[in-house]
């Protein structure tokens, strides 16, 4: 039953979630730190686009990537049983 599946997955979801959360938190903190402490570095460019824009876009894309990783890992964990 879907309900039981769900209960099993949820016992493992918290530690995995927290690990992924820590990863993203580090990336986000890096962004805040670079903006405040290294504004000149953020003004540097990659392929003609400045790092502030690139880092901002990366934060958005990585959020989605981690969310998909989370979903996939939980699903695989369940089907392996």
């Amino acid at each position: 039953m879907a309900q039981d599946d769900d209960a099993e997955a949820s016992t493992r979801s918290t530690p995995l979630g927290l690990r992924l959360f820590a990863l993203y938190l580090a990336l986000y903190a890096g962004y805040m730190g670079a903006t405040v402490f290294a504004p000149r570095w953020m003004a540097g460019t990659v392929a003609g686009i400045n790092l502030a824009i690139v880092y901002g876009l990366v934060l958005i894309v990585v959020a989605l990537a981690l969310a998909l990783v989370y979903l996939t890992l939980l699903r695989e964990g369940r089907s392996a049983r």
Partner: protein
Amino acid sequence: MIYEASATATVVFAIFVGAVLALSFYLGAAAKSAKGYFAAHGDIHWFVNGIAFAGDYLSAASFLGICGMIAFYGYDGFLYSIGYLAGWIVALFVVAEPLKRLGRFTFADALDARFGSRGIKLAAAVSTLVVSLFYLIPQMVGAGALIKPLLGFSHHVGVLLVGIVVILIVVTAGMVSTTWVQFIKGSMLIVFCTILAGLILARGLRTPAEGEGFAVRPVSSVTGAPGTHVLAEEGAWAGKPYVRMADEGSGRVAVWRKAGSDVSGNELLSEAQAVTVRAGQKLIDGLPQGKRKGEHDLRPVGHVAALPGGEAATGSLGPLDFLRTVGGSQIVLWGSEKIAEGDGSITTVYFQKPTAGRDVLLPGLSPTFKGLRDDGFTWAKVDFLSLMIALFCGTASLPHILIRYYTVSNQAAVRKSTVVGIASIGFFYILTLFLGLGAMTSGRLDLTDTNMSAPLLAEGFGKLLFAVISAIAFTTVLGTVSGLIMAASGAVAHDLMTSLLKMDLSDREKVRAGKIAAVVVGALAMVLGILFKEVNVTFLVGWAFNVAASANLPSLVMLLFWPKTTKQGITAAITVGMVSSLAWILLSAETYSKVYGWKPEASPMPFSQPGLVTIPLGFVVLVVVSLLTQRSEARA
């Protein structure tokens, strides 16, 4: 600026609102029980719920406010996009699933699941009400801003119209119709903004043709024009960098700003625009505001002064090329200065501020974050950190987002719908960068209303697109407002009346109580929407995030991860977080200048975003109070 109402806009608008209302009435028949009314029976499909998340979240503030902020200040608006999205990571990885396990209808349920304490119920319900109201203000302001150009009504009428339609939606069908409205609106918003971004890229960038845009000329060619004379630099104008030219025929007074000199040493003047308020009358360049003969109106602004390589137009550009080209261009932004004259009139001079594109694409251009790029310590840096923390922590504490976890059947569905939400919201926030920069260079901005930038940008691509985008934005307001009012109504009927006051309500009575609460909250929101008219809506939402994060996040997180948390700790943390962040906002320089009309320097607060201080404060209070109340808890 004065807008002309268009018939197309009115028709499109009427179709949208009519469709939304019809859907509500249709679904209303299915939502008679409390579980139906407050949680849509808990059987919404995860994909629909995920897009509805986007519908809830991409409010008027995201759409109108961020586009406006980017259009006027560049990167500083994009900061909000980044922070708003990052907050979803907290929601997905930390809060969502445990919350779903613990609660039934509201977030107070979840907080109180372990304790059964009336203090927690009360504090959580009040904080839900406060945050919802705070979040409602910008939605109402956004509605007022939209209705003006769309239907030609005043701000007040716009606010009242939204209020009434939303109350109808909520009262007829509660969470079921709210969810479907959000789903439809979320999808349409994303589709049409994608189209708009595509049109911007296809159009590319260009510099204004001869006679378009705003002039920068040598002094002699301005002051020597026939039929005009220079007004003396007297009174408040003495020592200011302006030259005022009176036209003897029309009586118009054109203001020019001294703008340095060109390569051959000729002094230059750049064309400015002046808005004077004298004895309650609004004058533009010295003439009454209007479109008829003998009147004058502000001209729309926003142009590229020079493209890289001296080109006149780029033709269509890819997304990355677009960013590169903006970075290499010279863009004309606008500054303003207030001049108070002896006769009690106040003139705001709006002047051209040529800005290098590479500066536009870095944070620190808006007044709030001025000083962010300086070396060493500045309060702007603290303000920035505080905002980014509040946005990060705020999403997972917003009551109208939290209640959406109760509309799906189980935790797997919660997870999947959150991921769908992140995908659609993230995509939309990437679009905002292009919409904002497109508006900045569209030549259509209204200097007095940043919130109108996105619809005005759309107008550049034709009346129909303008009508559709405005109608979507308006539906956006309707959707978000109905979600917020649902959250508030749940807090009153479920948390306050049933759980706290132990009123013995039948299912049907509970639904009725929720509906009455919805009407009251809706009315309150209308009043506040009229009061806060002047403030950029994204700025207001930033504050709602601050209050939500300060009041709710410490309790949510600690309850889930710290076994020693006590009921007194939670109650105290919610109360202190809510009161301290609210007080801070009401005393901040922004509120002083934009809401009370006082001098911003008089504000006792060193920066305007409280989150950096008040979120940790909430955690500290929770830990201290919990430790102090350990024993009483054990005895109980």
